[in-house]
């Protein structure tokens, strides 16, 4: 009996299953099950008060598709995400280049670098909902510090380029509101992209860069023909993160504009929240949020292919 017990305990395959089971079960119950529920909701008439299942086919999707607000949300979600990602990756590349430039090793330099690093990662480290409250003040219609700086630079106010008004009213005008939201996304994602790119840059073997220098390659040539191609896979990974986080984000829009003015800054997560939770129509809310899924699937496929290619190498 004891021998069987100890063999049983020492079976490493069994141990693998025992160890993997809780996490797997948990994920199936809290990610898999809700996902299936979302699919079911989207083809039913579920509301907050009544979750009985009436199959209505694709009617929710059709209804949603015909709503102008939904069209706005769809277009905004894509354009916000794509524009924000392009800006983020450009800024992050510049910043990563700056921060990986070798400096004379002085004590004051190291402390300065530490403080700089702290300030630079604050946008990513701070809970988004709290830093966006900060931006709400920065974009305030009357007291905006940004407007003040523009006024001091003689760009805003009576008789100036952007005048005669004293305030730009960032969140009250469609185009400015969109720009503000994209800006906050870029501000927030750039630190993460930068540190990911820096990790990639520091993993480039130094003899490769020395070789380029011996061959007489100048800074920008080394940058574009050696460094950037080498960190391409990592850049892709950081883009994917940015894409997923921005695409599914509710926080920025919820706190800054709630989708306004009218529906000019509505996004899919915001619309899904307004319909599903505020409006109590779980079925249509689920249908809206499911439009995110194909994008997620696409990103997952790209990710898998990148990972498997990295493995081959």
């Amino acid at each position, binding site marked *: 009996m004891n021998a069987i017990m100890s063999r049983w305990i020492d079976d490493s395959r069994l141990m693998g299953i025992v160890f993997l089971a*809780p996490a797997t079960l948990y994920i199936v119950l809290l990610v898999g099950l809700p996902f299936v529920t979302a699919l079911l909701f989207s083809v039913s008439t579920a509301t907050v008060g009544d*979750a009985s299942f009436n199959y209505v086919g694709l009617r929710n999707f059709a209804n949603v598709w015909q709503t102008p607000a939904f069209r706005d949300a769809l277009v905004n979600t894509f354009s916000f995400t794509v524009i924000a990602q392009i800006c983020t990756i450009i800024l992050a590349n510049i910043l990563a280049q700056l921060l990986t430039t070798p400096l004379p090793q002085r004590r004051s330099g190291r402390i300065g670098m*530490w403080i700089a*690093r702290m300030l630079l990662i604050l946008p990513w480290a701070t809970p988004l*909902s*709290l830093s966006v409250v900060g931006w709400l003040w920065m974009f305030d219609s009357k007291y905006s510090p940004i407007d003040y700086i523009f006024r001091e630079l003689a760009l805003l106010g009576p008789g100036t380029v952007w005048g005669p008004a004293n305030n730009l009213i960032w969140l009250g005008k469609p185009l400015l509101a969109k720009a503000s939201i994209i800006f906050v996304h870029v501000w927030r994602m750039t630190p993460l992209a930068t540190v990911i790119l820096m990790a*990639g840059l520091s993993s480039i073997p130094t003899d490769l860069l020395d070789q380029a220098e011996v061959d007489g390659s100048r800074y920008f040539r080394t940058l574009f023909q050696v460094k950037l191609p080498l960190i391409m896979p990592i850049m892709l990974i950081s883009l994917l993160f940015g894409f997923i986080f921005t695409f599914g984000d509710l926080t920025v829009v919820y706190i800054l504009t709630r989708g306004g003015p009218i529906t000019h800054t509505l996004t899919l997560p915001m619309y899904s929240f307004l319909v599903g939770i505020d409006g109590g129509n779980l079925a249509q809310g689920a249908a809206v949020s499911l439009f995110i899924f194909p994008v997620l699937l696409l990103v997952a496929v790209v990710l898998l292919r990148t990972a498997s290619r990295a493995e081959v190498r």
Partner: protein
Amino acid sequence: MASLTAGPAPGGGARRLRVMRVLRGTFYTTAVLFFCLLAASPFLVMGVVTFQTDQDLYKRGASPFDYEDMPTLEHLDNLFNDTRYLSFVRNSTVTGIAVVVVTLALSLPAAWALARLTGRRGESMGILMFIVYLVPPTLLFIPLFRIIVQLGLRDNLLSLILVYPSISVPFSTWLLMGFFKSIPPELEEAALVDGFNRYEAFWRVVLPLARPGIISVVVFTFTLTLHEFIYSLVFISASEARTLSTGVPTELIRGDVFFWQPLLASALLVAIPVGLVYNLFLDRLVQGFTLGAVKG
């Protein structure tokens, strides 16, 4: 100065090099300072506003960075004593600690199993874990809301403790997998020879060696619970159960009335400690985000 353009002149070359170095240093410092200022701007403004009197703050046209009156601690006092801020802090802390415990209990064994599963199966299961991490809460909050209502957990921190590990477990498992892979199986074998069974070997030999990974998971998971917004917004509407991420923007703003100084102070008070912790653990967190493509 002619030597600036005529390079090869003896002595001039060295000076030109020095000028170039100073120029490059200045450019470098200016550029980094510019980015720092941009990144930190809302926090710097928060720091200024926190101590301003109402008269200083709401003065149209005047500089928002000036102090005409003496800096005041009145708004911090107000934040701590007249609002539910401390209860948000407590709720966030309780939730964070509980989620850390659940996450470790689930992801440590799972990561070990995946790390020791040899060949393609282990690898692809690992990547699957990572993809689960990428499923945005936006996709799941409506069905989960229904489930939470059904379980009677609305307005209860337990709802968050139940759901948050669905974000933290996949990422933590992925992160820990890398750590376990770097521990040679021979160490475990040696422990078995010494008379431990496999579970004891895991507990006494493997876990102590994976301590840096465990610390990263604790930091990552705790800050994740601080950051999360959607679930907290949807599951909890009673103000006494609110957490920091939703309590500050919903409860400290009453209708259209903004109490800007306490509001911005509350954000700054969270930003500083979290920023410090992120700075300390940055390299390890980045390792997780680069899919193991970069070995730190």
